[in-house]
């Protein structure tokens, strides 16, 4: 496997890039401040990225942010969706991250079980 293979991906991906540039349907933000990292945010972010990749969810973007001031509930994950309330999830682990992708991102049902806030 070498970097040249990226050219093939590029050719294939160019179509959905146009769509994505207009507006990503969902933006997932993981808190990666000191306390988040210490609580396992890296594994959560990695799991989210892998799930997005595996399911080829081209309209979803995953990014990271710094401290959120809710250290006791880390790792924190926020899900922003156009036209819907923001959902903040707490105490997320890899297993919960997978459920979040399936239930919230794919099926459109926020996982109330570990939602801290809906705003």
């Amino acid at each position, binding site marked *: *496997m*070498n*970097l*040249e*293979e*990226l*050219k093939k*991906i*590029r050719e*294939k*991906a*160019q179509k*959905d*890039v146009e769509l*994505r540039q207009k507006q990503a349907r969902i933006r997932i933000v*993981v808190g*990666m*401040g*000191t306390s988040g*990292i*210490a609580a396992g945010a*890296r*594994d959560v*972010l*990695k799991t989210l*990225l*892998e799930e*997005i*990749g*595996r*399911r*080829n*969810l*081209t309209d*979803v*973007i*995953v*990014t*990271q942010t*710094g*401290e959120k001031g809710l250290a006791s509930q880390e790792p924190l994950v926020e899900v922003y969706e156009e036209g819907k309330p923001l959902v903040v999830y707490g105490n997320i682990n890899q297993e919960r991250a997978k459920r979040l992708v399936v239930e919230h991102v794919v099926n459109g049902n926020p996982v109330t079980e570990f939602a801290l806030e809906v705003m």
Partner: protein
Amino acid sequence: MMDEISSHIIDIVANSVTAKATYISIDIEKDTQRNLLSIHIKDNGVGMDRETKEKVLDPFYTTKKGKKVGLGVPLLKGTAETTGGTFRLSSVVGQGTEIFATFDLSHPDLPPLGNIRDTMLVLVVGNPETDFRFSLKVDSRQFVLDTQEIKLLLEEVPINHPEVITFLGKYIDENM
């Protein structure tokens, strides 16, 4: 204390991103002959004056409200210095910040290097606007991941595109 050296790296890089760095280089070198692990992180962010530099080294200052910098710097300094290593921070306003830490590989309290593969992936894809150059050198073997090179090949396709994420994971697995 962080459980892994790689967690320290993620934390320090978060500071660089906050400091508006557009380019961050991360060099990790493990030299078993010399019994040395070294971490060198350099960014082209806004940099710090002397006063700010002193403040980021002070763990009590950084817990204040409205902080821009986490506990990353004092924690890394602590880990380096309590495990027989060294720590150096230099910064120039308008040019960037550089952190260099070394660790004694045989020190019993040295945390494991941790999962460098996931660390690279998460930083590169989680900060799509920032360019990274990672180098992992273990004795004579070196692996480099350079996002400028990757983005050049990708043209307008973003580095956080699902297929690119999957590719990068496999690419690091096969080549690191």
